[in-house]
Each structure stands twice: as C-alpha cells, then as structure tokens.
C-alpha cells in the first residue's frame, strides 16, 4: 500500500500545482517548498504541545494532531496567498518568464527559511499513530503488501479532501468563478467577478491542501528535512503533468499513478533509482504527450 498512500500526498501537492497553473498558467516552483514548511509547522506545533519524538504511552494524541494539521493548513494557505500577492500579482501582465523566475526566487526564500528554522540535518517527526497492520493482524496474511493503520489514516483524510475540493470547484459560486477565470479571465471580469480575489482563493486552496498533506507525510514517513520540497515538488509536478496540467481530476489520478510507479521502482530497482524514474517519466510525458492523460488541448479558448 505504500505506493497508494504516497500517491495520496503527491496528489494533494499536485493539486496545488495544477490549480494555480489552471488559473494563471504559472508553474509555482515554490509549491513543494511550501509543503516542506508545512511539515515544519506540524513538527513545531507537536513539539509545543509536548509530543516531540516518540509515540506517547497514553496513545495517539488525536487532538494535538488535529491542531497541528489545522495550523499547517492555515499557515500554508495564507503563506501561499501572501506569495501570490507579493511575488506574482505585480507580474501578471509581464512576459511569462518573469513570474516563473519570481517563483524560483520564492522557492529559494522558503528553502532558506526552512534551513534557518530546523537546521540542515533531517529531523525526526514523532511517530504518533498506532502500529497496526490490518493484513497480518486482522486477516492473518503476511504478504509484501501491507495495509497499516497509517495507510488508513492518510487515505481517510486525503480522499475526503479531494472529494471536497471537487465539490467546491463543481458546485460553489467561488468554484464556478474559478473555472470561468481559468478559461477566460477577461470575460469572467465582465461577468462581475473580482479576478484578483478568485486567484487569491485558488492559492489559498492549493496551500491548504499542501498543509494537510504535510501532516500526513510527517506521520507516515516520520522524518522531514529542508530539502524535502525539491523531491516532493518534483514528484507532484510530474504527477500534475502526467494527469494533464491544469486538470484537477488529472492531478489526483497522476498522483496515485506516480505513487505506484515510484513504489515499484523502489521495490524492483532500488531506492537510488526513484528520482531517476520520476524525472524520466516527466521527460517522456513532455516529449510524447505534453497534454497528459486527461489534458485539455492547450489554448482552447473557443
């Protein structure tokens, strides 16, 4: 199950790339680093609440986990909105390369904040979830494929989040405005939509999802480091491209597919090949099917 569960974090981060790309055609390089900062917010919140390293003898502190997740969601959401306001919005009418470079700059800033905050070495993330493998303990199987409580925890959070996002985009007033802006922002404005607000809301959504993913990642993998944003960002970006960048369902699908592929690469070729596999996949998609699995024809305006 490791593949599917990793797929869930990747999908949540990939959604942040794809939402932003869909609406302003910006590849938000800083998004992976935002996720990294999210893991640090979770870590600090848990430390502050007294759950710093190992599983408490009193069992899982659900309330503390909830607080940590909310803190990371709020932090990442607002930070993403702030980055948009300061670093991308002033460049909205500039040539496409300008906001891209600005995003790389924001990425550097986030990485350095992470470095300053938690230092250069990997940090252990407290292992606070019950150790329970449904496969062996419930059904008596001992197989290579395990389905642990941690897997359940991640999927039980990630899937409702994704369904919730789908609902927001499909059915709410703001979601419809997002789709209108994504397709033709000038016409959306003519309808009376405040385009700046809609774009800010999109960054908020992407950040909130990254914040939620950061708690899941920390609890699942029990470590984090300031360079996490690069690897996580690379995978999530690849997933977004795989699904068709700008396409929300595609990003979710791409996340799960990529999670499985990386798990298979690790199992059959070894961990050192994982990033090679991901990069190769990215190159292959870009060369042979740049619109991705569910991608729209680019530039569809008619």
């Amino acid at each position, binding site marked *: 199950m490791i593949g599917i569960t990793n797929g869930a974090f990747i999908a949540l981060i990939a959604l942040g790339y794809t939402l932003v790309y869909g609406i302003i055609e910006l590849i938000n390089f800083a998004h992976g680093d935002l996720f990294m900062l999210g893991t640090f917010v979770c870590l600090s919140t848990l430390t502050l609440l007294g759950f710093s390293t190992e599983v408490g003898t009193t069992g899982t502190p659900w309330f503390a986990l909830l607080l940590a997740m909310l803190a990371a969601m709020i932090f990442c959401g607002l930070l993403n909105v702030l980055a948009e306001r300061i670093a991308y919005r002033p460049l909205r009418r500039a040539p496409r390369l300008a906001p891209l470079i600005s995003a790389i700059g924001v990425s550097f800033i986030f990485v350095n904040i992470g470095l300053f905050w938690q230092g250069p070495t990997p940090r252990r993330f407290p292992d606070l979830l019950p150790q329970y493998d449904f496969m062996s303990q419930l059904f008596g199987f001992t197989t290579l494929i395990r389905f642990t409580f941690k897997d359940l925890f991640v999927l039980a959070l990630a899937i409702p989040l994704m369904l919730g996002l789908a609902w927001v985009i499909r059915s709410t007033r703001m979601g419809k405005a997002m*789709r209108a802006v994504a397709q033709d922002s000038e016409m959306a404005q003519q309808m*009376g939509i405040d385009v700046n607000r809609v774009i800010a809301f999109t960054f908020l959504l992407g950040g909130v999802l990254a914040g939620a993913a950061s708690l899941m990642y920390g609890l699942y993998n029990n470590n984090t480091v300031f360079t996490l944003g690069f690897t996580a960002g690379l995978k999530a970006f690849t997933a977004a491209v795989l699904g068709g960048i700008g396409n929300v369902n595609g990003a979710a699908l791409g996340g799960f597919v990529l999670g499985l592929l990386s798990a298979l690469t690790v199992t059959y070729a070894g961990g050192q090949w994982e990033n090679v596999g991901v990069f190769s996949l990215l190159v292959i998609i870009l060369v042979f099917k740049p619109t991705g699995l569910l991608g729209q024809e680019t530039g569809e305006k008619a």
Partner: protein
Amino acid sequence: MPLLEVQQVHTYYGNIQALKGVSLKVEKGEIVTLIGSNGAGKTTTLRTIAGVLRPRKGTVRMGDRDLTKVPANEIVRLGVAHSPEGRRIFSRMSVKENLEMGAYARTDPPAELAKDFERVYELFPRLKERLTQRAGTLSGGEQQMLAIGRALMARPTVLLLDEPSMGLAPVLVELVFKTIQDINAQGMTVLLVEQNAHMALSIAHRGYVLQTGRIVLSDSAKNLAENEMVRKAYLGEE
C-alpha cells in the same frame, strides 16, 4: 439626459491609436447601431465602454457615473452587459453555468433570477433543451444565443452586442436580429455593432458610422440607409 454617453474617447493599443475622439449617445429604449468596415474601431469602442480597455482621454457616462473610473468588474453592476465579438462563452462550462455566470453580479432574490432564466429560455428554446451540455459543443448559432442570453441574465439597462450575426447562416442571422428586436420591444436599450449594415439599419432607430477611429456620420437609421456614402461603402451598392 441620455442613458449612455461616450464623449471624445481616445483609446490606444500601446502606441497605436484606435479611437480618435469618438462620441455617441444612447437614449433609453433605443436600438443604436455602430457600423463601419473591418478595423474601424467598433469593437474597441464597445470594449472601452465595458471597461476592458481604458481610454487615454474622454469619458463614458452611464447616468451620472463615469465608467472610465469604475473597476472593470463593477461595470456590469451599473447596468452594462457585454456580449463580445467572437461570443467568448465559457466553452468548458455547461449552458446553465454560462447563464449563471451572466447573473453572477446579481444580488436580488432567487425568484427574480428564476424569472430571467425563464425569459431567456423563452427567447431561446434551443438553450433550454441543452442546459447540461458543455457550451463548447453548441453550434455557432446556439453559442451566439448563449452569449446574448448570458448578457441578459445580468438584467442590464444597456446591452452591448458585438457582431451577433458573425459567422451565422442567413436564417440564423434573421432569427438573431428578430430576437434583438423582441428584447428591445420588452424595454431593453441596445447598442449594436455590426458589419452587416443592412440588417443592423433595418432594426435600429439611429446609427453612427465609424471610420478609422472617428465617427463620420450619425443619423436616424432610415436616413443612413438612404445615404449615398453609406450605400456605396457599407451596403455594397453601386
């Protein structure tokens, strides 16, 4: 006081001047048409009124408000709805969602909105049959109806229509112009931009002729249709 008044408007694309002091008025209840050949500045005029483009000089008045100082997304709230050149419906959204977007700025009760949905369905029964369909899959004529319907959903006081007949088969052109007349008969004020001067003058009350960014003629539609210069240049007569 006219409902909508454009005064000495100069609009530029970068350094290129597209409008060189355009002035026109639209009175309540009128259909006013703006005709002129390709590139004359008709679209630029409508986009300036709608706030998409900002004039370097001049004013656009809606009642006592100067629209050139109002944010583009607020203009629809002051009663101006724009059905743009090329329709620009939201092709990846459903027909129903397109109409909802048209009503986005409305704050009146849902019952009032429902009335306007019904009115649009009455004008365009074809749309009612296709509410859940993706707008991009509609035929050209249906897309034009949707663009007009979407603008009507704002319940505007002035409707700006940019070449509603463009690319349509002759029967559909007839239907669209007939519909514009019906909408006007129900009390809507219309500013109609057309290259199809013949049809436009046949339904309008008054008209303006635009040439390379300047208004060169303005008169009743009837007089324009009989004007020598208009007949030669825009009605294709010798």
